[in-house]
């Protein structure tokens, strides 16, 4: 009887798995740059976005640098070689060519797409008070709540708009946290980035609502290279959310974004990500390569940057949201849940670089691997000899489901200051039979039981998410693990 039941749920699971909720494509005419990576393509991108000369120079400088760089290869998940000449570096819905002035002018098909994704822009504008910037393939299509934000002096717009309207700010901060001489993917992004979000919170302003960006890759054979820059001026606060989806395709798609955060004196930035790019099918075919560079600089005194991420999608995730704690008394935090199932691979973690006095950092990482997947936590805690009285606490826990998957922990710990403390803990375990049995006795089916236990395991991180996101993330945790028990 029990066997039968198991079979039944398994079949159902497979059905469900085929059904990546966001796997639809939208039929929209696209404008694309010619295939391949060369100076002309970069000029084309710059030209189509009507960028000033300094921006083009920035890109070309990065491209020059890129020619000297090699792809890094120290990571755990290996991937087939990417042919960078076989990608489209710019793809935009045609109707965007002349930018719409308001939401009403948007292509209805685009609006429908975002509705399917659960972010109906128009309703959002009226109802729940989260300002959204939506990025479709390469360009930002709509930003809601502009009026309300402008009242406070907050700038929240697409990167291309910021380059046009606020060149001083962009010029001053772009590339200061992730220089164009950084590693391969960051430099690639600097050369070909297409759009992204730009946020500036003026001095003393607490942003009255959550700012949010939704990324979607639609066109095939495109890479998405967005660039986000968030600047929190003295004494300001902002909470920023980011979500991602992509259609189901057999080929692998590349996503190499750069995110730069800058917190000045007494400012605080909270950056939350729910990443749900298409992970490939159950045989590991297709899916997104998510090679993202995210870095925050606590530039001023008493500043704080906190990263929260829920990573459930992508065929390969390879990212380390980091904090450079430069200002005295600054704080860096990193909360992460990473879930891999089927043939997904993730190599993720954080870097905390302590440079200022009395800097503090905290890392909580929860990794769950199931199926044939592989998960690595890789982190660096580096306390500089000048960072007096600093401290770090790291905890990374891994949960394994089955013996076909792997869970790895690779922390690097460097303490060069005798006044400072570093504590690190890591455990690896599985869901115990007792826990499962207990839940099932009380009427939960095996799936629900696992969902409940995993949610408990992740609770510390889920708590850090803003409410709307937390609900979504909790569901996502459940969905990602479907089919991994039994």
């Amino acid at each position, binding site marked *: 009887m029990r066997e039968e039941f198991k079979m039944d749920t398994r079949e159902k699971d497979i059905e469900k798995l085929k059904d990546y909720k966001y796997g639809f494509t939208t039929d929209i005419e696209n404008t694309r740059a010619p295939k391949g990576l060369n100076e002309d393509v970069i000029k084309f991108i710059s030209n189509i976005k009507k960028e000033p000369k300094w921006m083009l120079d920035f890109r070309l400088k990065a491209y020059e640098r890129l020619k000297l760089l090699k792809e890094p290869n*120290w990571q755990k998940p290996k991937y087939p070689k990417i042919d960078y000449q076989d990608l489209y570096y710019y793809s935009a819905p045609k109707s965007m060519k002349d930018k719409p002035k308001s939401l009403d002018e948007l292509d209805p098909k685009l609006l429908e797409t975002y509705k399917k994704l659960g972010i109906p822009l128009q309703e959002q504008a009226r109802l729940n008070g989260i300002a959204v910037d939506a990025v479709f393939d390469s360009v930002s299509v709509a930003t809601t709540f502009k009026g309300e934000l402008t009242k406070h002096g907050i700038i929240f717009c697409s990167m291309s708009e910021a380059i046009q309207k606020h060149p001083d700010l962009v010029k001053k901060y772009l590339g200061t946290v992730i220089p164009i001489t950084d590693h391969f993917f960051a430099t690639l992004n600097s050369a070909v980035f297409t759009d992204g979000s730009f946020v500036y919170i003026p001095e003393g302003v607490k942003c009255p609502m959550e700012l949010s960006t939704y990324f979607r890759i639609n066109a095939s054979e495109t890479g998405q290279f967005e660039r986000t820059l968030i600047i929190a001026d003295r004494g300001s606060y902002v909470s920023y959310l980011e979500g991602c989806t992509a259609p189901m395709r057999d080929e692998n798609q590349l996503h190499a974004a750069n995110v730069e955060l800058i917190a000045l004196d007494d400012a605080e930035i909270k950056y939350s990500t729910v990443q749900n790019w298409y992970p490939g099918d159950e045989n590991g075919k297709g899916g997104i390569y998510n090679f993202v560079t995210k870095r925050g600089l606590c530039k001023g005194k008493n500043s704080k940057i906190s990263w929260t991420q829920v990573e459930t999608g992508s065929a390969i995730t390879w990212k380390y949201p980091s904090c450079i704690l430069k200002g005295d008394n600054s704080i860096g935090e990193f909360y992460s849940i990473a879930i891999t199932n089927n043939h997904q691979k993730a190599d993720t973690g954080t870097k905390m670089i302590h440079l200022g006095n009395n800097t503090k950092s905290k890392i909580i990482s929860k990794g769950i691997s199931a199926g044939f997947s592989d998960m690595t936590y890789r982190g660096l805690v580096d306390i500089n*000899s000048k960072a007096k009285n600093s401290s770090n606490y790291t905890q990374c826990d*891994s949960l*394994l*489901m*089955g*013996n*076909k*998957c*792997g*869970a*790895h*922990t*690779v*922390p*690097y*710990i*460097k*303490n*060069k*200051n*005798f*006044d*400072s*403390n*570093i*504590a*690190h*803990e*890591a*455990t*690896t*375990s*599985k869901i115990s039979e007792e826990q499962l049995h207990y839940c099932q006795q009380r009427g939960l089916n095996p799936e629900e039981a696992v969902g409940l236990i995993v949610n408990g395991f992740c609770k510390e991180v889920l708590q850090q998410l803003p409410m709307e996101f937390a609900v979504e993330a909790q569901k996502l945790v459940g969905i990602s693990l479907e089919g991994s028990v039994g």
Partner: protein
Amino acid sequence: MSDQLQSDFDRLVKTSKFSSEEIEFKKNFLNNFIKNGFPNRKQEDWKFLDISQIIKKNISDLSFFNDYSQSNKIDSSVLVDGLEHNKIIFINGKVEKIDFNFEDQNKIEIIDETKKDISFDYENSLIDLNSAFIDKIFKILIKKNYALKKPLIIYHLTNDRIKSTNINLRLDFELGENSCLKLIDYFVNTTAKNFINIFYNFNLEKDSILKNYKIDKFRNNDLKYFFNNIEQDNNSISETFILSAGSDYFKNEINCNLNGEYSSAFINGIFSLKENQQHEIRTTINHLVENTKSYQLIKSVLGKNSKSAYQGRIFVNSKAQKTDGYQLSKAILLDETSEFNAKPELEIYADDVKCSHGSASGSLDENSIFYLMSRGLNYQQSKKLLINGFLMDVVEKITDVEIKNLITNIIGLKQ
């Protein structure tokens, strides 16, 4: 450097009596080493302390040729007192004495293995260097069901006859079924700036026990690399203790393969470093079958300008269910200029396992010092007492009482 390697190698070939076959073997190793050179920080395992830089900085005129023709006098004053023991004495890399007087001679065999194929599959150019320039390789065989009555102390001595020289040593040990060996490696080096490269290969058969204690206590300017490879069969136990305190540079590397069920490995280490010392312990424990266990505890006390690194890796194969793995590293930084690096790594492919690691580093606890001072101790005394307790924790893990007392005395700890 490659010219010098070649010429030193030619000198070695000329002065010794190797057969042409052996020379061919050695040439292969030499070519490998010339190709790869000393490991550097580009290699992950050498990230924290870059030996190629350290050698360049400390020994500018390193010579790879070591003259084995002259014999040396044994200075008996350096021998360990108060503990009856068997000895093997190396002076300047040359075996001067092998003495198993306390044991049943039928149960121990010492085999000259120099002529055998000595290749060892491990990605490490220092082992190539070792194999290319080694003079003699001995295998020590402990026969079935025999436990040595007294511990064996291997003395690693150098005298002022050599300077800036590379010394290579290799010993193989085979512990037969249900046998037991207690082994102490004891370093007394008074000379300056030699690079000592030691390679031990242990094979532990069913139910055998190995206890290995490495004592590098006396301050010297030598650079050392010590590599242990341990293969363990069913129900065998290996215990390794490392006191890393004397040399300018010392890297201990242990690769332990738990091939048999219910086998277990214990590694305990102390770094006690002062001025300009740079030491490292790197361990790799491979849990390859079910029901194996490993435990590691490493503690550092770091003075001025010193640097310690601990890289510990626990690998669990997908077959190795019910593995129990634990590693803990702790460090006290005493000075602004001291530095502690750690990379405790877990690589796990099985789900029914219990694996965890912890790492903590910081300065001495001011509250504890305050507590002791309020009870009448002065600052220095309280500091000493706290460090004493901190290190005693590791020494307490030694399972042999006699040796524990010896080591406690050598370090100068109070119980």
